[in-house]
């Protein structure tokens, strides 16, 4: 087993393609075992569920965009080697801020103003949620993995408290669809399309962050701090300032994702609003090696499987966890293929001991 020196683009794509194909084969075996159906029919069901009709396709696009945004938000933190595992909580806080505005101001302000307020509030909430662990890391060198993870649970409890105040109907312990009749605060239709605003926001942020990371002085500082804090200090970079600034950005973007979910998709808030996407996005960002184009592909693949699985579950009577199993198998093969990208396995003839 030898470490590779470098790998050609073609070989890289090939290894990943093989991984996906192997994954689909294994999934097919699992599906046959579970449903006793023809796997190709099951896969057709997936495609149907994800892209079968315009409404479903738009949902797939919407979900892909949200997952992509979270991955884009995580990227600057990870490039700085600040392990932001708190995206889930940052999303939730952004969602809470958005929900609050929708509930208290949803019917008294014009929709343009509401929209801007919601976006800004969610970014502010996420920013604060990301700033707290960053401050402690910069000042006391606390472990950011644990800190950000814990903050997720705090966020969930905050939502639980808010639900007490926002229960609708009273006693149900859920918030229900906010402003269902008036659609106050809901993301407006653009050009007749319900979700196009989501797409536009995400694409704009993705492009901005890409330029920021690669071409700006601050992006350069992030890369240097991520590679070696010693080198950063040697070059005169204020490491503490960079940590704080970058986590504010990361938290803000994840918070923004929360407003896209609450204002632009589900129109409600609960402790499961993020649905584990804060963690899935880590996989997306990491496996794409932070390349935005690849992140779009991986997000799409995961959402495709997810939406398709919902269809399969109803169509073939599978448990809804089936989609998790399939997502898990695909991730397993994709992550496993990373090993083969970095190492080459060769067989050497064993020689006999002759000492």
């Amino acid at each position: 087993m030898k470490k590779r020196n470098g790998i050609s683009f073609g070989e890289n794509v090939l290894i990943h393609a093989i991984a996906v194909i192997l994954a689909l084969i294994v999934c097919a075996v699992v599906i046959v075992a579970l449903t006793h159906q023809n796997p190709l029919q099951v896969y057709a069901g997936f495609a149907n569920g994800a892209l079968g009709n315009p409404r479903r396709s738009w949902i797939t696009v919407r979900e892909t965009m949200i997952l992509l945004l979270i991955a884009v938000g995580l990227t600057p933190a990870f490039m700085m080697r600040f392990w932001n595992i708190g995206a889930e909580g940052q999303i939730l806080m952004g969602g809470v801020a958005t929900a609050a505005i929708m509930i208290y101001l949803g019917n008294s302000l014009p929709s343009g103003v509401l929209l801007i307020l919601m976006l800004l509030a969610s970014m502010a909430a996420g920013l604060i949620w990301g700033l707290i662990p960053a401050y402690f890391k910069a000042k006391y060198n606390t472990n950011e993995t644990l800190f950000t993870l814990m903050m997720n649970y705090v966020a969930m409890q905050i939502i639980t408290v808010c639900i007490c105040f926002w229960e609708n109907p009273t006693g149900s312990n859920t918030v229900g669809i906010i402003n269902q009749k008036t659609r106050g605060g809901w993301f407006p239709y653009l050009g007749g399309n319900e979700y196009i605003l989501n797409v536009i926001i995400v694409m704009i942020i993705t492009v901005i962050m890409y330029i920021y990371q690669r071409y700006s002085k601050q992006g350069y500082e992030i890369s240097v701090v991520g590679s070696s804090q010693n080198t950063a200090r040697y070059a005169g970079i204020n490491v503490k300032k960079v940590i704080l600034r970058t986590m504010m950005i990361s938290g803000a973007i994840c918070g923004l994702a929360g407003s896209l979910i609450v204002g632009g998709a589900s129109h409600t808030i609960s402790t499961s609003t993020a649905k584990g996407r804060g963690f899935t996005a880590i996989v997306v960002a990491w496996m794409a090696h932070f390349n935005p184009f690849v992140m779009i592909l991986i997000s799409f693949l995961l959402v495709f499987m997810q939406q398709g699985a919902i269809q399969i579950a109803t169509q073939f009577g599978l448990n809804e966890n089936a989609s998790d199993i399939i997502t898990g198998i695909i991730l397993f093969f994709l992550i496993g293929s990373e090993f083969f990208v970095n190492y080459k396995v060769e067989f050497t003839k064993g020689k006999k001991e002759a000492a």
Partner: protein
Amino acid sequence: MSVSFTGYTDRTKRKTVKGENTLDEAYAIEFKGISKSFGKIKANDHIDLALRKGEILSILGENGSGKTTLMNMIAGIYFPDEGHIRVNGKEVMIRSPKDSFDLKIGMIHQHFKLIPILTVAENIVLGLKEKDAMDMKKIEADVGALASRYGFEINPSEKIYNLSVSQKQTVEIVKVLYRGADLLILDEPTAVLTPQETEKLFEVMRNMRKDGKSLIIITHKLNEVLEISDRVSVLRKGKYIGTVDTKDATVSSLTEMMVGEKVSLNIHRSDPVNTQERLDLNQVTCRNGEGIATLDHVSFTVSGGEILGIAGISGSGQKEVLESIAGLQYIESGEIHFTPPGGGKEKISGLSVSQIRALGIKLAFVPEDRLGMGLVSSMDMTDNMMLRSYWSGKGMNLDRKTPKELAEKIIKELEVVTPGVSTPIGRLSGGNVQKVLVGREIASNPVVLMVAYPVRGLDINSSYLIYNLMSRQKENGAAVICVGEDLDVLLELCDRILVLHNGKVAGIVEARTSTKEQLGLMMTGTVEKMMGGKEAAV
């Protein structure tokens, strides 16, 4: 006596005649056609080498010639891709350090493998299987007897953390002897020793040879080769060049074998002219996390147009001196002042790197840790150039054009071997990495240039290139500070030399009139001399 080999082709078509002693048995170890590659790099290319029993053989070669790789194969750390090894005439497979151990081979590495909290004797018997309970008293007695047999001075019940570097090295040697080694390999043993300690080591090596042991010393220091070895085998760029008897060799003949061409190893040193004081350190004291003073009331000055060398045992405060000046090290007490060419003393102690820069002071620093501090190994040359310039220019965006031009200029002027400006620096060889780092630091025409161990791990040509670059900077009026470990080079390159011992200034001398021995005594704190020029009676 015939030996049969299973599954090999015997490359030497030597026939053994009954009754005749084969030449093979006169050799403690032989390498035949040994090759080893790491990815695209061929570290050893069909090497044929032999060590006679009871001799001291030097394996000489520049940094990167493949010496350590070759020895690591005897030590069982690597396994050859091709070729075979014979020990005492018998072909062997050394697949792990245990095999090497069983063959009575002992390797003393550059980085010691000792446990600080245990005693000398405990480290020596670590890992050995004893049937009965360990009798430490007996072990200590045995260790003591073994040590005095060869002339080592160690106390078997002393804790490792109390020992000096040279004493730790002694423990490593006694360790392999205790385990019955007949063949010892020492990898660059004198790198960490003072001249006096080196002499002691050589004494001990001669005693071991008298006792019938065979020794290999890996080194790149020519004068030591000439002093201690019986024969010299030279490697160059992974290939075996040849073996000569030491008595027939000279510095220039060996250099020619090492480098492949006649090189004149001269460091151009001009006399300092028009020197103006630039840096003034006054009673600087720094403390580490454990409260120990890493610098203890250090005072000295450096002027523009001179090279001040800093010598000392590793860890005497060299790193702290340079980092204090650069603004990377917290100074507990004392002050550092800088006098710009236009005049007017400014205090720079307590300022950060960016604050010093904001004052317009052009301070260049080549740190000891090249890829961990001076450069980012995952970035390409252009981005590494930007470490010193990224903030310049208006607005939020980076200017990559100017750094790229600088990178291309450095590649051309310093002959950096690289596929291109966009190759990650980490892929370049050690010598080229250093050229990039030094090139970047001198590109700004600094007023103060500080370098730490500038040629460590570099091949001869690159080393002399860097010495001459430093001399040129000095001639341009820069104040140059050079922390080094090769005392011969420091004496040739520098104008004055400051010796550090335990964080204190042990002495400052004129390089042109000092000797290695004087420096060695100061390095161990044996003699305290102050201020260069006057030589007190030793």
